[in-house]
């Protein structure tokens, strides 16, 4: 239908920035040594890995010795949660998390429940925030870990991380945050925020896929994640992935250096998009925080009444616009997004939800084209919907 190619799914992944790729390329060919080898081939690779480690540390305010490279956000979350649970089980077998975590956290917690750990899933309010009072009340003598995400991937809510960190410190409970959506997009200071562990993923901020980081405060005991060699201070075996690590180092350096500029642009696009959609389309829910200072600048999430999310996604796809739907049919399950249900979106409405996530290369012209196509799409699908009845030329809910 269209030759357009508009990418509005930047929370799913971003492209690898050409500057990042250029930095990585020599480490596939010229500098191919194993960073654990003692000869000069290995030493050259190790030097690059050390530089990347310093860049990551600088970006989040920790020491290079507190940075552990992993295969991505999911591995970092798995390692942080299981690693703490197993290493501290003698002190306590209770974990606190929230209902809106990414599956990498929720399913890891579920797996631990099967091993006999107890997990409290904190609810969120209708804008997607946990309550600090709930958190404080949930802490028990045997609470070993609090794991609360920094910013939500579906509706963009930024949790009160500094306050959560302060509570964790007050009760001497270890605090982990899944910051996959936050790193590179929001300023992070693990010391000021009392964060003991933090997960990140390279491809969310214009770095390569397949590489992530777990930050772990020095002195904190954690179980090994993979058995094998002595890489990553003997805690995470596997040959050092030098090119990808060089990539995440460069990507985080660029993301932090350009954060203000990029966020100003991205927020402008998002704000225009949201105001246009609210103005031009009736019977919709704008999901997530209304206060833009508490929301990822890239995120917009809408539920469109009377129509289903995958249909919207497919029609936008045909118009050359790539978005994401948390709806039942796209994932193959019959359940709509648990995140949207947890903020009170009615189940039949939650089926009609779409996430638009903007990136640094999107333009205002793309925003306007998307609004135009979205208006058409919603109109066409509502004409098909048995939930809408045409009354005197107007759509009315039956």
């Amino acid at each position, binding site marked *: *239908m269209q030759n357009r190619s508009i990418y509005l799914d930047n929370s799913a992944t971003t492209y690898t920035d050409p500057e990042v790729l250029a930095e990585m390329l020599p480490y596939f060919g010229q500098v191919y040594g194993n960073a654990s080898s003692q000869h000069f081939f290995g030493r050259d690779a190790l030097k690059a890995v050390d530089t990347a480690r310093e860049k990551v540390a600088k970006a989040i305010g920790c020491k290079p010795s507190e940075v552990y490279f992993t295969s991505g956000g999911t591995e970092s979350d798995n390692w942080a949660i299981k690693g703490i649970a197993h290493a501290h089980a003698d002190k306590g077998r209770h974990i606190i998390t929230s209902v809106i975590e990414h599956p990498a956290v929720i399913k890891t917690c579920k797996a631990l429940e099967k091993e006999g750990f107890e997990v409290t899933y904190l609810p969120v309010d209708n804008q997607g925030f946990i309550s600090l009072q709930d958190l404080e009340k949930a802490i028990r003598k045997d609470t070993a870990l609090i794991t609360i995400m920094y910013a939500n991937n579906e509706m963009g809510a930024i949790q009160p991380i500094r306050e959560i960190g302060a509570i964790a410190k007050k009760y001497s409970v270890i605090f982990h945050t899944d910051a996959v959506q936050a790193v590179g997009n929001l300023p992070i200071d693990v010391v000021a925020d009392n964060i003991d562990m933090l997960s990140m993923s390279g491809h969310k901020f214009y770095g390569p896929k397949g590489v992530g980081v777990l930050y772990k405060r020095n002195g904190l005991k954690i179980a090994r994640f993979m058995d094998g060699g002595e890489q990553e201070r003997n805690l995470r075996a596997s040959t050092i992935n030098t090119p990808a690590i060089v990539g995440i180092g460069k990507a985080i350096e660029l993301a932090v250096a350009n954060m203000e500029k990029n966020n100003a642009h991205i927020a402008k696009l998002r704000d225009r998009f949201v105001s246009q959609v609210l103005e031009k389309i009736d019977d919709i829910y704008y999901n997530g925080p209304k206060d833009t200072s508490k929301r990822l600048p890239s995120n917009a999430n809408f539920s469109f009444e*009377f*129509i*289903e999310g*995958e*249909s919207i996604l*497919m*029609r936008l796809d*045909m118009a050359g616009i790539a978005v994401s739907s948390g*709806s*039942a*049919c*796209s994932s*193959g399950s*019959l359940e*709509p997004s648990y995140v949207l249900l947890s903020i009170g979106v009615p*189940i*039949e409405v939650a*089926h009609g939800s779409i996430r638009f996530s903007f990136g640094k290369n999107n333009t205002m012209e793309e925003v306007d084209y998307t609004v135009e196509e979205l208006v058409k799409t919603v109109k066409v699908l509502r*004409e*098909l*919907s*048995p*939930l809408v009845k045409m009354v005197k030329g107007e759509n009315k809910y039956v």
Partner: protein
Amino acid sequence: MYNEKVKEAFANPKNVGFIEDADGVGKVGNAACGDIMEISLKIKDDVIVDAKFRTFGCAAAIATSSTATEMVKGMTLDQALDLSNAQVVEELEGLPPQKIHCSVLAEEAIKAAIEDYKSKKK
């Protein structure tokens, strides 16, 4: 994940709407599950002379509604009652496994519309 035929049926669905003086109407599914299919039929001498649909659901649900209504037009009631979801899937040259339930819904909606017609006739 969808083949060209499914995409075409979804992009340009046929028989959209509701027959105001329908002889039989079938409505299956529910909003909480994410799909509702409504098929209305015009029947003359036990032959389906017109069929229309309205569907709340995914692309596959809309494509199967369009295709199923196309298929039953001109069929006798007995032929239409024999129409299986597998035939609708075949007509669409296949659906992803997790979307087969959409074709089942289409089969059920047609059967429900015919039942509605028969119960009214009694």
